[in-house]
């Protein structure tokens, strides 16, 4: 099941900015336990992964995303 195809960064490919209010997009990059997925797995580049991590944390502060799965 190892996907050897090199993934491209979602934000670079679509020329999008990471927005902490856009929870629909952010949810693509967290797992069931609401943990931030590694960039290695999602294909997000290092620069966007940093922005993504802050964005997810910001939306947790504003209760847009929960920090735990329950």
């Amino acid at each position, binding site marked *: 099941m190892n996907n050897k195809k090199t993934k491209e960064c979602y934000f670079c*490919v*679509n*020329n999008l900015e990471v927005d*902490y*209010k856009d929870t629909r997009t952010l949810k693509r990059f967290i797992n069931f336990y609401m943990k931030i997925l590694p960039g290695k797995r999602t294909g997000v580049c290092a620069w966007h992964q940093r922005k993504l991590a802050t964005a997810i944390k*910001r939306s*947790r*502060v*504003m*209760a*847009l*995303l*929960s*920090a735990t799965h329950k």
Partner: protein
Amino acid sequence: MSKTKKSTIGHYEMLFIMPNKFTEDEAKTVIEKVEKTIADGSGQITSREYWGKKKLAYEIKHNSYGYYSLCEFDLEKNALAAIDQSLRLSTDVLRHQIIIKKSKTEEELAHDKKINEKIVAKKAEEEKEAKLKEKKQADTPEATPKAAPKKEKRTDMKDLDEKLEGILSAKDLI
């Protein structure tokens, strides 16, 4: 970017939550109050957005629902702390978050436009190719068996054709 920043005015974005004890109208008066505090601190509100009542991802002070409101404003940098403090002390606002928002320069906007155009062009091309492929597949005799799609990815086109022919001839026999 530049080390010597002349302007003392920053562009900020603020999202805040009001508790569920308010009605919709009361929440709107609270928003007006908040906007007034910004205006009193010589700030200028550039855009506002009311999200309405939303379920919170977790309870905040026993509220599971809250009214969200978003606003953007220009403000002098040293006046920000006072507004932040007053909002933190206010009981009308459950939680707020102020974020520095970079407004894009014209150069950046033009660059963005270019890239977006490129993306659109690329997508259109990809769609064309996909359509061509579909046509090719439609031209070749159909009635692919149900098991075929999984194998399709791994086998080359030549192999597929051979297999297809084999299957079709077998069907003819039946």
